[in-house]
């Protein structure tokens, strides 16, 4: 069940109304857990067993970590991390690993034929395993008491708005909210619904429209002109932003309607003035996860400049690998890491004028756009070829999948989106009449101008 589907709209209506009908928190937790199970099982029902397995392990590990001291406390944490990382390794990275062994063996003239795993990747696996790990790590660090109520813990991992594509939450933020009875609040409902509609707009009107351009340019590299290929790359930057942040808006909005506040995942990343700044604005829940649970424990910037650079590279390498079992993601992560290292230096105050800032925004955006090419391509060869064709400065077909009217419309919608997020970031509309008008307007815009195709959210695959 994707957020952009009739099934989700009916499901959301039923769950939310029922949620407010219940007068005690126990009932609400059960309702949300059952609803979340249904939500997850609507993709591939059997995969709930994998998720259930890790939930059981982490639940008991959390309690044992809290009860124990010394080496056994550490052992339970390691067990939990192995269970989660092991699940990821088997379902996400096993085939990648075997494929590379095959390639290596073939290179040395000794072909091998090891068995491959013949099953699809469980949807959102990287998200909920990371969220589960953040729980056991926080319990280990004594920042969070172990959750004794299994249903509450299971809901923490499975809460449907953020189950398959984040934000990757922290137990300190979500668990208390799940346990507390939160009464109906009309302002929260309005704020949540307005945010959901904004998310639908970004996904259906912008991202899925740009997807047609991107699919065309990436599918017809040879006959397309350099300029059109560059345009395709730029549009992909906006596609992935509107797709992923649109998902996050719907997730945060759906939770907000139920009076639950999830962490923000984006902060206008394309207005970043440097690569490090970009990562403090893009997929914040993942960046902060790596910062808190990997970068800082590795020593962060406390052990000298070279060690800091090494730590940054390791974090970005793993961040790339987190996104997918493909060398394109590894290269994408490494290049980001290198650029963060190279471009992070303190500049004298006089260089920080408006013009400098504007130039920094443009340069950062262009760099990010070129790196997205690795993210979007099926393999490194395709990515390098795409970049090579851009710099060939050659003529060719300028057709990028949409007619001129629709390209102009897409650019206008991007401008509207950027303007609104920069200058009108709040979602709460106090005046009821204005709110109803906004809802009616957004529904009409989303329906008539939305592109409703069977496009999954890009980040579902992770």
């Amino acid at each position, binding site marked *: 069940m994707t957020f952009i589907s009739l*099934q989700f709209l009916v499901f959301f209506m*039923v769950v939310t109304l029922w949620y407010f*009908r219940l007068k005690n928190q126990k009932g609400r937790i059960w309702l949300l857990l059952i609803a979340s199970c249904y939500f997850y*099982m609507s993709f591939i029902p059997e995969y709930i067993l994998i998720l259930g397995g890790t939930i059981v392990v982490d639940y008991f590990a959390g309690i044992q970590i809290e009860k124990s001291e010394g080496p056994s406390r550490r052992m339970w944490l390691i067990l939990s991390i192995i269970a989660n990382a092991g699940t990821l390794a088997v379902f996400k990275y096993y085939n990648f690993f075997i494929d590379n062994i095959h390639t290596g063996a073939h290179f040395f003239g000794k072909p091998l034929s090891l068995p491959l795993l013949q*099953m699809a990747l469980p949807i959102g696996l990287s998200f909920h395993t990371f969220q589960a790990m953040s729980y056991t790590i926080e319990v280990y660090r004594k920042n969070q008491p172990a959750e004794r109520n299994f249903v509450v813990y299971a809901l923490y991992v499975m809460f449907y708005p953020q189950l398959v594509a984040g934000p990757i939450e922290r137990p300190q933020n979500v668990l208390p909210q799940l346990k507390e009875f939160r009464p109906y609040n009309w302002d929260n409902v309005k704020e949540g619904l307005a945010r959901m509609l904004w998310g639908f707009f970004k996904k259906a009107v912008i991202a899925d429209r740009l997807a047609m351009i991107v699919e065309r340019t990436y599918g017809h590299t040879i006959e397309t002109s350099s300029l059109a290929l560059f345009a395709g790359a730029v549009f992909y930057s906006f596609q992935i932003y509107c797709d992923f942040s649109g998902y996050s808006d719907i997730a945060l909005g759906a939770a907000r309607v139920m009076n639950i506040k999830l962490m923000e995942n984006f902060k206008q990343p394309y207005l970043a003035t440097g690569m490090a700044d970009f990562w403090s604005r893009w997929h914040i829940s993942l960046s902060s996860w790596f910062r808190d649970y990997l970068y800082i424990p590795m020593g962060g910037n406390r052990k000298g400049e070279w060690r800091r650079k090494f730590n940054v590279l390791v974090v970005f390498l793993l961040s790339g690998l987190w996104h997918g079992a493909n060398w394109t993601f590894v290269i994408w992560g490494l290049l980001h890491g290198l650029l963060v290292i190279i471009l992070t230096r303190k500049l004298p105050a006089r260089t920080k004028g408006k013009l400098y800032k504007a130039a920094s925004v443009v340069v950062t955006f262009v760099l990010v756009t070129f790196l997205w090419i690795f993210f979007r391509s099926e393999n490194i060869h395709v990515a390098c070829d795409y970049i090579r064709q851009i710099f060939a400065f050659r003529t060719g077909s300028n057709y990028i999948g949409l*007619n001129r009217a629709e390209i102009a419309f897409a650019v206008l919608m991007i401008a509207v989106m950027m303007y609104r997020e920069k200058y009108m970031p709040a979602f709460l509309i106090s005046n009821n009449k204005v709110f109803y008008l906004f809802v009616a307007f957004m529904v009409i815009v989303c*329906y008539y101008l939305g592109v*409703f195709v*069977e496009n999954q959210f890009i980040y579902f695959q992770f």
Partner: protein
Amino acid sequence: MMKKIFRDFFILFGLFTLWASTSRVAMQYVVNRRDVNTWWGSYQCLHGDLISMSYLDFVPVFRNAPVNIPPTRDPIGPKNTALYLYGDSYSWTVKKTDFPSIADFYFFNRDLPMRYHLDSTKRNVLILEISERMLRDVFQDSRIMNNVKDTLPRSRNRYAALFELKSLFNPLINQNLQCNLFNYNFIMPMFETKAALNYYLFNRASGDVVISDDRQFLFLRTTVSRTSTASSYIPIPDEDIDRLADTINKVYDHLIAAGFDEVYLAAIPNCATIMQPAGYNGLIPRLYNNPKLRIATIDAYTTFKNTTDVLYYHGDTHWNMEGERIWTNIVSDQLARGAMRYKQTSADTTTIHKP
């Protein structure tokens, strides 16, 4: 008080709609009971499934023209074949009379398990008919063979079928919801306005439908997309074709062991494969010519590619009556050739596996 009544009404309405859109029996009931001629009746586009998906009924070129069908052919060869056709929507309309040389004909919809009982006095032939867009998905593993069982169907309790747990996760739920919530004549102007906006302003079709480069045909988006396994244009590495052949071989061995005398694979090309061949990934010919593949094949692709006739509807995913006729003739010829060999080899009590 009114708020509470409304709230409870919407909860019940939502639950009922979700249930009705997942239950096969309930959907069948809903569709059969609708009066299509009233303002609240369901939208019935008779010009093709893609026209109906994109609401492009107002564009004459996409409407399906009637096709004259030549009369049925005379029987060829001995009539001792029981034909089991395990197929999809392409072969829904195929009838026994389309195959003059067969004694018995059984069609099984691939969306459902195939429950059969072989007649050992006949030559039992199974055709796995599968549209090109489904080929890679269906044979990504050998699960299909678990759906083919030599057993008579169990009688199902009609009321139990209404509440099957498995149907809760019906993959067609969104289409069914669309049908139950919006597919009414009085809402059609809203959909048609959007279709007209996209067609006249943006020069394209709505939803999962794409207009061909020559603007004569409608294609299902997944069959032309570069990211879908259903696509005619997505590049396919040789290893994937090898893997596909291996899986099909596994299914083939299972079905032969289950008692079928012959098993054929019949892949039906996508409309885009034939009507817009530039950039075709060659899935069917590459699979059919793969040296690893052991199953016998029914090759409609080569015939379709070489004919100048239009074999597909302009506004539908399927072949037209002429395309179906050509295919049934290819099957009949192949069955007749196989029957000759079967007659000889059964006299020697040898089973042939690859005619």
